[in-house]
């Protein structure tokens, strides 16, 4: 990755998320053609920078599915659960439209509506397209997107293109039926349940065909893959290559989440998920090949609010029934808020960053310092602004002399808040600290004594000195302190055994 010199070439970077909040020379958007970049620029799921400012929501209107995946249990529906595809409130299209408009009127930052489940949206075409149709008419300022396993995709591309849906996500875990048979036990195709390799072959064919057809229609395609160690981990590099060749604009590799209590095949059979390190290595391998997306938080399918922050409870159907929404007025207010956000983003983009200049100096000094991972507690806005104890997830950044780049999210307390019902006796705090394994510093607005001590013991330096500063600047500043202190000349001393 090359060195970013901020403000040097404004014309080339104009409109992109070239600096400031994104802060990364590995800007994911820079390789994209202008019209595609425009489409994804404000999409919180696709743009690293936009998710600090804009929000998305999903509505659960699509219950039926046409395949079975080994990481999914169709029986599971628990309020403690926040894996993708798991929701508690099934809505009909009219209810969904009402909910979306209520949320849009109350949370102007909400710019994207997705249908992702709990089944497969394209296996429920009437419900899915009825929802899209109504929203296109009633709330034209909301972007629409849809996720699918791809089986029914070729048959629905024409219909999708009518609804002006410019984002489609296909979950593609393999391009080889042998591997597919280990992930998909069956598909329902041409009125029959087809098991094993034969079924996987049909699914793969449909996914690839659907991808090609969408690209040919000029519809943006993102590909999601679930990384399953020992099953498709190596193979995903091939998947990345193939989908890129066919024109997918982003490839998002997510970790398998498997616990016996989920009742999934992988959970019960003891298939493990990848470690943070394994995931990161694969994401790096694939990014050499293609633009990767790292900030997917595998959000709950009916989550409402800024990414990672679930405000669903404020908008349950009974509460929405009582709301009186004047959407015409709401649209005006929304447009104002969006303009204000745009102004702030623009200002951030143009503001020269002290930290980067400092990093450039560092590099010029010829001193070779190693890269460092840092965890950041933030509740949004692109700044360090959250108390360590309030964080439900940490953003992981990698700092090096060349660059500060966003790597991933790590949820703490993962998806289960059930305490003793799900998991061992380890305290939440110890668990959270273990989640930060590999990081050498954690940046937050404040932190208590107990976690401070435990973090230090684990070799992670707590840092509350950069509260309210832009994340990348704060990370760069901490990196510089560490480098100046001579902490980074040697490879890291491993404190705890790493996985």
């Amino acid at each position, binding site marked *: 990755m090359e060195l970013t010199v901020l403000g040097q070439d404004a014309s080339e970077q104009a409109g992109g998320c070239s600096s400031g909040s994104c802060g990364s020379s590995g800007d994911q958007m820079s390789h994209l053609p202008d019209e595609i970049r425009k489409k994804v620029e404000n999409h919180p799921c696709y743009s690293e920078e936009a998710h600090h400012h804009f929000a998305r929501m999903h509505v659960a209107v699509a219950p*039926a599915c046409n395949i079975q995946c080994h990481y999914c249990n169709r029986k599971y529906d628990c309020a403690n659960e926040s894996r993708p595809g798991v929701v508690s409130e099934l809505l009909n299209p009219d209810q969904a439209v009402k909910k979306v408009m209520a949320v849009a009127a109350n949370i102007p930052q909400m710019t994207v509506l997705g249908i992702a489940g709990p089944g497969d949206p394209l296996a429920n075409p009437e419900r899915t397209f009825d929802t899209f149709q109504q929203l296109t008419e009633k709330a034209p300022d909301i972007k629409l997107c849809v996720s699918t396993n791809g089986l029914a995709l070729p048959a629905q591309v024409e219909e999708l293109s009518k609804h002006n849906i410019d984002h489609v996500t296909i979950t593609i875990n393999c391009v080889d039926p042998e591997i597919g048979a280990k992930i998909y036990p069956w598909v329902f195709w041409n009125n029959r349940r087809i098991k094993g390799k034969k079924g996987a072959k049909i699914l793969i064919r449909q996914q690839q065909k659907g991808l090609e057809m969408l690209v040919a229609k000029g519809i943006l395609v993102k590909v999601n893959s679930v990384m399953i160690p020992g099953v498709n981990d190596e193979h995903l590099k091939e998947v990345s290559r193939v989908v890129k060749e066919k024109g997918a604009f982003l490839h998002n590799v997510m970790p398998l989440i498997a616990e*016996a209590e989920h009742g999934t*095949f992988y959970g019960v*059979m003891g298939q493990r998920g990848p470690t943070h390190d394994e995931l990161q290595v694969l994401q790096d391998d694939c990014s050499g090949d293609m633009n990767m997306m790292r900030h997917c938080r595998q959000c709950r399918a009916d989550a409402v609010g800024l990414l990672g922050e679930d405000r669903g409870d404020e908008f349950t159907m009974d509460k929405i029934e009582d709301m009186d929404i004047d959407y015409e007025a709401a649209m005006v207010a929304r447009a104002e808020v969006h303009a204000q956000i745009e102004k702030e983003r623009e200002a951030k983009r143009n503001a020269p960053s002290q930290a980067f200049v400092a990093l450039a100096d560092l590099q010029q000094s010829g001193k070779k310092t190693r890269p460092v991972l840092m965890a950041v507690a933030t509740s949004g806005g692109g700044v360090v602004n959250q108390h360590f104890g309030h964080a439900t997830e940490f953003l992981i950044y990698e700092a090096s002399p060349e660059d500060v780049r966003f790597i991933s999210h790590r949820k703490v307390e993962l998806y289960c808040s059930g305490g003793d019902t799900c998991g061992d006796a380890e305290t939440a705090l110890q668990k959270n600290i273990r989640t930060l394994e590999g990081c050498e510093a954690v940046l937050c607005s404040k932190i208590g004594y107990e976690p401070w001590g435990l973090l230090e013991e684990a070799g992670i330096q707590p840092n509350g000195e950069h509260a309210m500063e832009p994340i990348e600047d704060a990370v760069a500043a901490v990196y510089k302190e560490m480098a100046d202190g001579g902490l980074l000349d040697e490879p890291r001393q491993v404190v705890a055994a790493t996985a």
Partner: protein
Amino acid sequence: MAYSIIETCVNCWACEPLCPSKAIFEDRPHFRIDAKKCTECEGEFADPQCASICPIEGAILNGLAENANPPGSLTGIPPERMQAAMAEIQAR
């Protein structure tokens, strides 16, 4: 003879639009099949449609009141493994 849906149904809607006889209907606490209308898909499809898409083992019984999708047949999880895992979770 007719297929039937029992209480393990999770109301996922997958079967309802597929039935050639319009025998399946939404109901509480779960979907049901009108036994008078169900033709077991005779003359329409090689396999009974509801039982071929239903993702839940044990939710649908065939005309002989047998489980159309026995334990392990859809998820691939051997029933003993499932029992052992559940027992282990209970014990915690």
